[in-house]
């Protein structure tokens, strides 16, 4: 027997099962536990029941020619190239659609089969241009390969008959082209769009000879439903669907597996290279988070890495009104260190701090907080996770004992009811959104709790979901109403509660939640959602079998964000949906390394691994390794830093990879704070909004230019691998290290793997993590330690890190940000698919073709009341500021609620968001701002000032940038 197959460990990961992620096994794996033995060309093989003959042959090392099959798509059986002979059966069955059977004897090569396959290829080729030498797929074309394999030598029909050779190319998509003259109508693209992506944008129109692939109703790709995920391009066996970057540059010659630096899904990609030029990013089938799928950002939007706007050399200036001066790394670092030391000498040890980034690697983040704690000598370190998922940290740690999601992404495939709260997976976590859609097509039920009707509710063939369109700011009222139904209708999982949860906390919570004032009927006036719908949703979740909750910033970015997170944990514990696949509490992290930046000790009160700074034993361990005494009091959080800056006690800030001027609320307050600093050091790849207020600009490196790790929303640590040299000679971790050395606190790492070793030494949940193990396993989900040496896919299976689960009382308190006569509408914010966060990267790619500006979505009735038409300029005023955006009439929200995104700095979405924040963590209340909207004719005063300031800062940068084009900076250590 050649291969023995253990279905429970079946995976594409090399090392685990011997499967090669770069090889196409023809049809998907079967997960059956029943095994079947058979023979192919005399070779014996045992495979799970349900496996196709084509796949079994591939596993036995026998490659049957194929064209319409691929192992990420259900078999279709249209090309017939995979025909085989089976003992005792008549004819030539297609091996891709024929399942194996016990004792089956298959022959894959006979004279008849060879002739049959040649005839098929002859037909294909008679309607296919013979321009192989100049075709962009040359050297990487399955049609070419199969023609070679079957020994095609002549095309008897000639090329004069009716054909499609003159069909016109559709170039509308900025990233790939569609040349129908090369199409063999195998429908792999159509099936990829349906099965892998779940968009159903493509169809085969017409019949027989006339059949053609079509995006929508004969529309161009850009005008169709297509979301440019690239699944069809990857599936296409010819050059019909082809990346324009490959058409331009030619086929790549080597590749490196790395991790997408956009969202918290953390997709693995093969960066396909020509020398140091990135030709294309191809989703990697061996990546467990994405299993070979991608979205438009990770797949195509990498052009920013080589954009002209990149900062290529260190620069300094004394005041923000001075032009930038290009200097050497040594000078920039000495200048920075002098400033920081001078400030501390004058204003005290606590007058400086640092901000780490959720976009940077774990190792970089670890070093920045170490620099703050050890070299600055205080705990004034924070991360942009402050403004997104800090309530997740607080809420989950309080209830479940660990600040992290409980599941793998794959777990959703076992969920029976999926609850999505304040998240928009198809836009913000697209690859996971596709997986969720796949599960919905299989029949799982959907509940969406969101003021806006999001796209997951419109999943083709996904059934009808329940939408609870609550008023912004009433999450806790809603979660209490759901829990009330579960408790009062006897839908609790008593067994789970009595074994796994603290009984006193549970009793207290139960008494609280059973009070009539939490009933859906009582809460209806607050949430605006009919009580019967809430009851229906609660029953569906509690009686589901497996109920899984996925949530996003619509949960955390509220004045009761932490309370809501605890309310979600209560729901999961009350129904016993914790500790097994298919359930769980799953925060969807916005940026690539939100989980990691929190894990790495970025928060001012916690050392790496969520270990509190006032725990003397913890500090002692860190002090022993770091060699300096550590402050035992928490430091300032980002908003406290701003307040202290304005008050004149906080004077120096080091910001790595974060754009606080654009992403934090109440922009004018943030700008005032940044202007109050004596020294702002910004390390970034572009002159971002924050850098316009900086005195030192240190060039950052993109994820393509460095080594490290990211941790995704499933706690999965993935490797980031360098594919090109950093533009200014230093990777980000090297810059932090050099700054620390300049400050007199020595750091000497020669590779990020050494930083990870130190992290493992000091962080109990990481003790088993190393680069060697990551190479071996591909990725690791923490906790990874002696108790679980290969990591932990599902958390809390036996007990909680705090022993028993803690129910928390979640009293609903209305936010102070209320609609009034002056500000009658509630503004809420979100993201869209093609742009990423503040947009610094995606705006510098062709993704802008999908979203050139932020707009204000407003309900038709609110628009009519104000005489607003689609496309009008709207002045939006809140209690703190005013901005102007274009109107888009939309009935996705209820009347009274307006919506926008924050991907463009000039939009000023955060000029109107207020200083209100979560009571426990100060996470800003981005999701609720009372506003008034009116038609205007010109930009707001802030926007006019913004434009002027932007022009001035660009002018101060320009001479320096011109001088750096030929830069040849040398790294310093």
């Amino acid at each position, binding site marked *: 027997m050649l291969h023995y197959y253990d279905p429970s460990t079946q995976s594409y990961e090399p090392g685990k099962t011997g499967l090669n992620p770069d090889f196409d096994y023809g049809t998907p794996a079967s997960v059956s536990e029943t095994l079947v033995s058979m023979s192919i060309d005399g070779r014996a093989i045992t495979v799970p029941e349900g496996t196709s003959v084509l796949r079994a042959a591939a596993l036995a090392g026998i490659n049957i020619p194929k064209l319409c099959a691929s192992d990420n798509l259900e078999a279709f059986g249209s090309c017939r190239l995979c025909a085989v002979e089976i003992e005792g059966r008549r004819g030539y069955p297609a091996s891709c659609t024929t399942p194996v059977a016990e004792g089956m004897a298959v022959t894959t090569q006979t004279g008849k089969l060879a002739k049959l396959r040649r005839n098929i290829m002859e037909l294909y080729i008679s309607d296919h241009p013979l321009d192989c030498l100049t075709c962009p797929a040359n050297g990487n074309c399955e049609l070419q390969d199969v023609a070679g394999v079957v020994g095609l030598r002549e095309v008897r029909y000639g090329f004069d008959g009716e054909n499609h050779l003159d069909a016109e190319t559709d170039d509308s998509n900025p990233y790939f082209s569609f040349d129908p003259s090369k199409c063999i109508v195998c429908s792999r693209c159509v099936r990829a769009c349906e099965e892998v992506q779940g968009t159903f944008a493509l169809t085969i129109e017409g019949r027989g000879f006339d059949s053609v692939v079509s995006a929508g109703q004969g529309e161009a790709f850009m005008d169709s439903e297509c979301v440019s995920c690239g699944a069809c391009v990857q599936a296409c066996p010819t050059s019909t669907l082809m990346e324009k970057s490959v058409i331009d540059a030619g086929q790549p010659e080597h590749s490196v597996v790395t991790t997408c630096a956009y969202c918290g899904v953390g997709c693995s990609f093969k960066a396909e290279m020509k020398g140091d030029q990135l030709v294309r990013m191809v989703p990697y089938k061996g990546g467990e988070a994405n299993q070979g799928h991608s979205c438009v950002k990770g797949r195509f939007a990498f052009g920013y890495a080589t954009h002209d706007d990149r900062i290529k050399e260190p620069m300094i200036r004394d005041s923000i009104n001075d032009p930038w001066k290009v200097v050497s790394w040594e000078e920039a670092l000495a200048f920075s260190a002098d400033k920081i030391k001078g400030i*501390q000498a004058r204003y005290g040890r606590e007058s400086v701090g640092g901000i780490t980034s959720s976009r940077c690697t774990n190792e970089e983040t670890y070093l920045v907080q170490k620099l703050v704690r050890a070299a600055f000598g205080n705990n004034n370190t924070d991360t942009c996770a402050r403004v997104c998922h800090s309530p997740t940290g607080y809420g989950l740690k309080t209830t479940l004992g660990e600040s992290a999601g409980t599941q793998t992404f794959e777990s959703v495939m076992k969920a029976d009811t999926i609850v999505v709260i304040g998240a928009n997976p198809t836009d913000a976590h697209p690859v996971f959104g596709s997986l969720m859609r796949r599960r919905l097509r299989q029949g799982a039920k959907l509940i969406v709790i969101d003021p806006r009707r999001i796209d997951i509710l419109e999943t083709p063939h996904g059934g009808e979901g329940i939408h609870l369109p609550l008023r912004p700011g009433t999450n806790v009222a809603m979660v209490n109403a759901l829990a009330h139904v579960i408790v009062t209708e006897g839908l609790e999982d008593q067994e789970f509660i009595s074994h796994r949860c603290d009984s006193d906390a549970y009793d207290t919570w139960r008494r609280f939640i059973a009070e009539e004032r939490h009933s859906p009927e009582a809460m209806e006036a607050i949430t605006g959602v009919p009580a019967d719908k809430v009851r229906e949703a609660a029953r569906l979740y509690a009686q589901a079998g497996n109920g899984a909750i996925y949530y996003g910033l619509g949960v955390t970015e509220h004045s009761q964000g932490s309370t809501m997170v605890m309310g979600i944990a209560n729901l999961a514990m009350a129904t016993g949906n914790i500790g097994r696949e298919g359930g769980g509490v799953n925060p969807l992290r916005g940026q690539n390394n939100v989980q990691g930046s929190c894990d790495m000790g970025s928060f001012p009160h916690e050392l790496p691994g969520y270990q509190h700074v006032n725990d003397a034993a913890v500090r002692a361990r860190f002090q022993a390794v770091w060699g300096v005494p550590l402050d035992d009091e928490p430091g300032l959080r980002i908003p406290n830093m701003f307040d202290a800056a304005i008050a004149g006690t906080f004077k120096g800030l080091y910001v790595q990879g974060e754009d606080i001027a654009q992403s934090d609320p109440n922009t004018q307050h943030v700008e005032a704070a940044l202007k109050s600093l004596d020294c702002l050091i910004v390390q970034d790849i572009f002159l971002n909004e924050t850098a316009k207020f900086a005195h030192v600009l240190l060039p950052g490196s993109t994820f393509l230019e460095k080594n490290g790790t990211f941790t995704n929303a499933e706690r999965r640590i993935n490797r980031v691998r360098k594919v090109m040299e950093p533009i200014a000679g230093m990777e980000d971790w090297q810059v932090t290290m050099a700054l620390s050395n300049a400050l007199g606190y020595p750091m000497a790492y020669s590779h990020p793997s050494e930083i990870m070793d130190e992290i493992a030494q000091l962080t109990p949940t990481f003790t088993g993590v190393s680069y060697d193990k990551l190479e071996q396993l591909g990725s690791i989900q923490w906790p990874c330690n002696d108790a679980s040496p290969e990591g932990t896919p599902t958390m809390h299976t036996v007990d909680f890190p705090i022993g028993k689960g803690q129910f928390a009382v979640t009293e609903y308190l209305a936010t102070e940000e209320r609609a009034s006569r002056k500000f009658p509408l509630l503004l809420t914010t979100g993201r869209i698919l093609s742009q990423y966060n503040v947009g610094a990267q995606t705006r510098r790619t062709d993704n802008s073709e999908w979203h050139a500006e932020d707009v204000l979505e407003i309900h038709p009735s609110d628009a009519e009341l104000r005489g607003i038409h689609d496309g009008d300029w709207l002045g939006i005023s809140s209690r703190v500021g005013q901005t102007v955006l274009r109107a888009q009439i939309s009935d996705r929200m209820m009347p009274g609620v307006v919506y926008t995104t924050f991907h463009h700095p000039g939009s000023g979405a955060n000029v109107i968001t207020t200083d209100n924040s979560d009571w426990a963590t100060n996470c800003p209340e981005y999701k609720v701002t009372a506003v008034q909207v009116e038609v205007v004719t010109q930009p707001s005063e802030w926007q006019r000032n913004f434009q002027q300031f932007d022009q001035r800062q660009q002018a101060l940068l320009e001479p320096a940038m011109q001088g750096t084009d030929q830069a040849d900076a040398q790294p310093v250590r």
Partner: protein
Amino acid sequence: MSDQQLTNLIKMLEQIIANNLHHGDDDRVAAVAADHLHKFWARSMKQQILACVQEHPERLSAVARLTLAKLDPEAATPAEV
């Protein structure tokens, strides 16, 4: 210390208290809030609010004052420069 800063700290403290009233009587609520400040507030923030309660007790609610009475003054000792 600016008044804006102080206003924000008072707002934060009162918000913490408001979200923990379910813990029972004032004493218990104040203990929970004091623990929160102890765990999450920077030294300088504790100092400022303690100074405020000395100078302007009227700006704080009774539970807030009780909270600050429970706050370990050690934690709010100025750091040596």
